[in-house]
């Protein structure tokens, strides 16, 4: 559900950047979305098609680079992808970790004409 607000913010940011570059058309928006953000890419597409109408970003294609959750064990430093809970470190079997990737939620670049 928060995809509506996120898509609006994403569109605003893309349009702002396009305006600064005096672009006539935004053709692509390259997004980086971490798994922890809980953002459903299909929903973003859906809202984008509606929200971008009457803007220079209408019909722009969205490219999603999805980043999985990766954790780093605080005890032994192993970086691992958690699967079934409990999320113990595969090397030392301890569960004491920090998030390395998965929180991303940004526009990497836009393509304009």
């Amino acid at each position: 559900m928060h995809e509506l607000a996120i898509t609006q913010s994403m569109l605003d940011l893309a349009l702002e950047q396009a305006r600064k570059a005096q672009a006539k058309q935004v053709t692509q928006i390259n997004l980086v979305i971490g798994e922890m953000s809980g953002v459903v890419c299909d929903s973003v597409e859906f809202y984008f098609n509606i929200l971008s109408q009457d803007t220079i970003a209408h019909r722009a294609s969205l490219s999603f680079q999805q980043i999985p959750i990766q954790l780093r064990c605080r005890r032994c430093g192993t970086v691992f992808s958690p699967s079934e809970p409990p999320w113990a470190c595969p090397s030392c079997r301890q569960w004491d970790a920090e998030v390395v990737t998965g929180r991303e939620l940004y526009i990497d670049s836009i393509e304009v004409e």
Partner: protein
Amino acid sequence: MEIKVVRNILSANEQIAAKNRKLWDEHGVLAVNLMSSPGAGKTSLILQTIRRLRSIMRVAVIEGDIASTLDADKINKEGVRVVQVNTGGSCHLDANMLSLAIDSLPLADIDLLIIENVGNLICPAQFDLGEHKRAMIISCPEGDDKPYKYPLMFTTADVVLVNKIDLLEVLDFNIVALEVAVKGINPQAPIFPLSCKSGEGIEAWVLWLLAERENCKEFYDSL
């Protein structure tokens, strides 16, 4: 032509959040963003907190709900200032909604501002409101595996409250498993088991708030 952007999608929200926080800082208000699933006990906890703190601290509440003023009405009966924010379908509060609500509060007369977010363990975690502290409630009926399902919420919380411990006897909820799950990903956050119904454990939470308020006050005094 490609234009490199590399900017957080929610950067506009974060700019407004920073303004909110500046406003609170200027007035010496400790702002706490309270989040949980629907029905975990946010309003009950706020009522318990007000009853214990109102003689020593000026408390105000911002109530976020998709619709209705039911919760705000309950808090109003306690005689503290409350502002209702109806999000009109949105599943979370954002910094802009907060900035509008703050305008109707006399910040100079407030020590502690509790913001009750919309009941949801996903979306509210994503939106910075400018709060000083994030508090979250997990209630025992929800299950002890929730930190693995909603890692962003549990990772970003400054304090985790485990409500409805009066029900432990009839549930398969393993409080040790929950504590292990939370500490594995967020070792700094204290965990306070409590019951808003019986009042058990509320003191530890209230003492935590008082300590945070004291830290906050020392910070303002040093400015």
